[in-house]
């Protein structure tokens, strides 16, 4: 069974249709890249998968491990293993990263009927993960993303990904706002989390991210549809010839 299956998805935002019948099948262990110009609907897709309010699904379905994802509350999706690494992670003043991660992890465990993790055990776990990602301890004590640099915010997203051990990770424009060094660190973090059980969907405008996170499948999106799919060589092709050729195809 596929891990994530998007079938003929149609989505509107305030009367305007953004996705016009998008389909996508992601199997465990795979890394899919979704590329496309601005406004092609890439971020909309990631938001709808995660359940962000404000989008109206007018047709199609999303199955996650065979179950209807659209019927689930956003936090329920998270507990089942859908993780969205935000393009713009928000700042939450006054809430320490450490406290936030603990609350979120326990909420997920509780929802899955697992036992909550105690403070000391959690502390140990976070420290280990943080260390492996080169995240300094003091970052955990600061408010969630408050005063973080672009690179720190993205690393915080990857830290959460590592901690929550999701089944599907959607990385929305992970490279935006990162310089090449920060990008490499973030990509290393993501690569370390690749596993035969886990799938990743990497949404990006540029090919350069895919030099670091090498995809198994590349999809080109234009005007709310997948217009072409192929192997990693498709990304290189795009780099050379641009998106224009696909805009006519859409």
């Amino acid at each position, binding site marked *: 069974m596929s891990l994530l299956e998007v079938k003929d998805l149609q989505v509107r935002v305030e009367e305007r249709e953004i996705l016009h019948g998008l389909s996508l099948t992601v199997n465990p262990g795979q890394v899919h890249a979704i590329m496309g110009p601005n406004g092609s609907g890439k971020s909309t897709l990631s938001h709808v998968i*995660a*359940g*962000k*309010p*404000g989008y109206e699904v007018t047709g199609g379905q999303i199955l996650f491990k065979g179950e209807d994802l659209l019927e689930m*509350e*956003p*936090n329920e*999706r*998270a*507990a089942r293993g859908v*993780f*969205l690494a*935000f393009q713009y*992670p*928000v*700042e*939450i*003043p*006054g*809430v320490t990263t450490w*406290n*936030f991660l603990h*609350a*979120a*992890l326990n*909420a*997920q465990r509780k*929802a899955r009927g697992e036992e909550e993790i105690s403070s000391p055990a959690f502390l140990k776990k976070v420290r280990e993960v943080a260390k492996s990602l080169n995240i300094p301890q003091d970052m955990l004590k600061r*408010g969630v993303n408050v005063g973080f640099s672009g690179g720190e915010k993205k690393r915080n997203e990857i830290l*959460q990904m590592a901690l*929550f051990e999701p089944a599907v990770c959607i990385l929305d424009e992970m490279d935006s706002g990162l310089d090449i060094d920060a990008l490499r660190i973030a990509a290393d973090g993501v690569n370390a989390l690749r596993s035969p059980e886990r799938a990743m969907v990497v949404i990006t405008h540029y090919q350069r991210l895919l030099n670091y996170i090498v995809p198994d499948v590349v999809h080109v999106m234009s005007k709310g549809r997948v217009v072409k799919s192929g192997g990693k060589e498709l990304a290189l092709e795009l780099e050379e010839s641009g998106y224009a050729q696909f805009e006519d195809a859409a």
Partner: protein
Amino acid sequence: MPAVQETVERVRRIDVDQYRYGFETVIESDKAPKGLSEDTVRFISAKKDEPAWMLEWRLEAFRRWLTMTEPTWARVNYPKIDYQDLYYYAAPKPKKTLSSIDEIDPVILKTYEKLGIPLREVAILEGVEPPAGGEQTPSRKIAVDAVFDSVSVATTFKAELKKAGVIFMPISEAIREHPELVQKYLGTVVPTSDNYFATLNSAVFSDGSFVYVPPGVRCPMELSTYFRINERNTGQFERTLIIADKGSYVSYLEGCTAPQRDENQLHAAVVELVALDDAEIKYSTVQNWYPGNSEGKGGIYNFVTKRGDCRGRNSKISWTQVETGSAITWKYPSCILRGDNSSGEFYSIAISNGFQQVDSGTKMIHLGKNTSSRIISKGIAAGKSQNTYRGLVSAHRKATGARNYTACDSLLIGDKCGAHTVPYVEAKNSSATFEHEATTSKISEDVLFYCIQRGLSQEEAVGLVVNGFVKDVLQQLPMEFAVEAQKLISISLEGSVG
């Protein structure tokens, strides 16, 4: 449905009827006749076995009160209070003189137990870890002066305090045992003529706490009192007087809960703080009186006058409050910065829900040279409540070098509530430096979604964000209180998000 819309829906379903502390203790009580007259004042004074000067002081206040009118400037609406339809004194009937906690009426003890109030030492210390590092910090003990309705029924830690020279007792006792101290300080911060409610309090105050910390003494423990309004139609008129003599330090905690009632109950307390040279007083309040039911019926009317006088140079007074209860809150804990280099602080969290009305803030009155003050106010309005910050910062002609920083932030949950900010910034001195900033906004939907994507429920997400919003103030509370306050905020929000 957008996330915030859901929150709004939940706020509409708020069930403040399930007020956790709404139970009534059935005990016999000793009441003054209903209504207010010179006779009532004499009755109260006689009950307390007060000296003649005290009665005279009360009567003077009462006569003054008769000439005054109830203030109307605050943004609160309530039906007219019939002052003749209230009882002004109620005391649990004394069985005998108490020598230990065990002798307290078990019904009363039970009440405290339900409230989770740590009257016994063991309970107080249980589960409370010393702060990290644990160096020079005095042991985290709390002495509780429990005020049940109007009369103190138990005082713990008396012996240890006595050893340090700290006087901590019901003010009724202090009037008898330390008349020279009471006479010297009572009414010097909040004069009997101060305002309608304070004057009423001066005439009929029933009891409260008295603290005197002698020169150079750092009070060995946090002093704590819990108030409950229990008697039907009983006005509560607490009077608290705290004096920190030269170079001393004291931290005082005040917590309140009241059982549920249909009629509104009037509470008009007066708290006076005096800090002499180099002294420091920290006064913390957690207030969760009954806010009324989901139709806005019932609830406490809380008209409080709290004022601290930084009388000596280098003195410091710090107010911290967490206000979640009462149908009406009218409260402005203030600092008179009289001594040179003195400083005042006001940290406040005011949460209103249902039909609650809050009009609270502070006054920082800079009189001495190089005085400084700091105001951090966090208002959270939900349901159909109205939440107003009202604050005055003033520097007088001779207050050279006065400084103030004020930050007032308001958070709105739902579109049926109101959040208002009314600051008065008055400088009569060119060397005064005042900075004030205020913001009003709602919880960002993006932030809520981020939390929910990480697996938190809507309520958990709101709770987390609100706790982050008020963090700067929570940090000012003594540790034991901070935990209780955080719980209280969650309970208040539990009501507000379903």
